[in-house]
């Protein structure tokens, strides 16, 4: 069985910009991507969001694509991020042919559906609009992204709410470890829609100000959008290709909180189990963890229970931790891979992303990373992604050293 899973490529688009370099600069300068709604057609302009700055038309021009992709935001963002991942890994078309493409999404083509739904619903007959509804399919949006990037041996979609992209990465790693593929491009893409903006609003967990993860007075989420993919590769394949290694996916776990459809259990059982099991796989002890990129949505329930889970493991002193959702917004199904790329940037460039918007601790000693510019030797990073349904997943990224790689 293959033991190590290398990361040899990354691509990202979010409110922080297009591409890894723009994302890095935004993180280092401490500039949040959250602002007023500009692209999404909704009456709920009272909620700040982390929108990708480009319109569908601008992205379509960038990619030189037409109908139907030009109106599918999840697909457009997905193609931009997946293409960057493939290019940064210097993968050739023939190498993609034996690779897997796995994408997490829950929204899929919902944004397009919203533009046609009322006409279809009111007319109650088959119209041109009803034909457009087929793009709603989550799996179809993955296929469109994959087809624009290359031919793959396996294409599939994971849908576990806000841990979807993390679980896509876990599936990719498992396929490599079992020898089914040598290379997997895994991540997620999710566009903002009225559907889930309204949904999170009815759950009364949206913040009308910029979100404040891990702050005592936090009141909720700012939704965001974006896409990110990483290239996972077996050690053998990466060495044979002479690929540059961005980091090692040294551990991961997927657990269930088994408590409530949307709320997390008080002691964060699922989160605790996910972090523990991932460290077991990576053969790391809690003291080896330099930084936790928390799920940290900014809701009263998530941050309190995630912190409770962390304090069960690190009962002496918490490692450095922060949530980057005050930078990007909560990019829901894409958050696992967007934050994975952020963790890989932190590993490579030796810094810890700050926790914007924070003022007061939930508990005395629970203070996240606040410095804008910092340099740290970061060896091992925990990246948490939790979803409704109690789907809790943890990824661990470790620094690659030539001698121990």
């Amino acid at each position: 069985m293959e033991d190590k899973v290398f990361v040899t490529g990354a691509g990202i688009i979010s409110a922080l910009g297009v591409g890894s370099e723009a994302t890095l600069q935004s993180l280092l300068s401490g500039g949040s991507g959250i602002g007023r709604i500009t692209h999404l057609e909704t009456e709920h302009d009272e909620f700040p969001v982390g929108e990708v700055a480009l319109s569908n038309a601008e992205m379509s021009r960038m990619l030189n694509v037409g109908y139907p992709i030009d109106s599918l935001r999840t697909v457009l963002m997905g193609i931009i991020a997946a293409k960057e991942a493939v290019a940064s890994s210097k993968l050739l078309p023939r190498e993609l042919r034996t690779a897997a493409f796995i994408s997490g999404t829950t929204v899929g083509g919902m944004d397009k559906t919203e533009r046609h739904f009322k006409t279809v619903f009111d007319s109650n007959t088959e119209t041109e609009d009803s034909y457009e509804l087929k793009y709603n399919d989550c799996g179809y949006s993955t296929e469109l992204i994959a087809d624009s990037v290359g031919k793959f041996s396996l294409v599939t979609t994971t849908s576990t709410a806000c841990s979807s992209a993390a679980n896509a990465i876990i599936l990719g790693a498992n396929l490599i470890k079992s020898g089914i593929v040598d290379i997997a491009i895994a991540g997620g893409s999710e566009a903002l829609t009225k559907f889930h903006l309204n949904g999170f609003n009815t759950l009364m967990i949206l913040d009308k100000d910029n979100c404040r993860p891990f702050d005592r007075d936090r009141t909720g989420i700012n939704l965001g959008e974006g896409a990110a993919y990483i290239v996972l590769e077996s050690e053998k394949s990466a060495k044979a290709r002479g690929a540059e290694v961005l980091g090692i996916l040294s551990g991961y776990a997927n657990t269930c909180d088994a408590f409530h459809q949307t709320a997390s259990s008080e002691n964060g059982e699922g989160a605790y189990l996910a972090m523990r099991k991932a460290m077991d796989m990576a053969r790391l002890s809690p003291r080896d963890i330099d930084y936790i990129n928390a799920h940290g949505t900014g809701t009263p329930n998530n941050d309190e229970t995630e912190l409770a889970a962390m304090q069960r493991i690190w009962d002496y002193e918490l490692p450095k931790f922060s949530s980057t959702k005050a930078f990007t917004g909560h990019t829901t199904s894409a958050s696992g891979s967007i934050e994975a790329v952020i963790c890989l940037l932190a590993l490579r460039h030796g810094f810890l992303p700050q926790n914007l918007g924070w003022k007061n601790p939930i508990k005395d000693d629970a203070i996240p990373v606040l410095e804008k510019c910092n340099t740290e030797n970061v060896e091992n990073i925990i990246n948490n992604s939790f979803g409704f349904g109690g789907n809790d997943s943890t990824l661990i990224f470790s620094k690659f050293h030539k001698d121990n790689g």
Partner: protein
Amino acid sequence: MKTIAEISITPNRTILNGDTISTANIAGLYREFVGDYPKFFKMDSLCKLGFIGSELLLKGINAEEKENAAIILFNRNGSLITDRNYQKTITDDNYFPSPALFVYTLANIVTGEIAIRNKIYGESSFYVLNNQDMDLMNDIINNTYLTSSPTFILTGWVDFDDEHNYEAKLKLVTK
């Protein structure tokens, strides 16, 4: 992979381990075989279908074994029927979107509902596939054993199109 138990539920027939045990619909199955979990009525159709299948399969399995089990489900339609219902509540001009309905616009809530009922803390995943691709489904199930050692896996297909078109084909497997 060894199958310990299997069930098939369609609108007019429920077959458990090869025997037809009922011809009732989902609500009828609940009254016939479960009856003690009022939260059932709050679930959407996809969850109800997966839940009933899991109840019949997991009868007689003790809590200790269930704790470290895994749940891996697949379907084609995701949570489409509930998505449509929720969409209607936000399209209306005088609208009152329902929080309870929104929760079920996530297909993976069905794995969560089964985990909550049975206190299952192991891996839970939900995949959306074009069709019942047995090779891919088996690969994914086998892969689970690479990275964790669940006592058993509750797995299979659970798809709800409408009240006349639904299908659950679930089984319990061990390594």
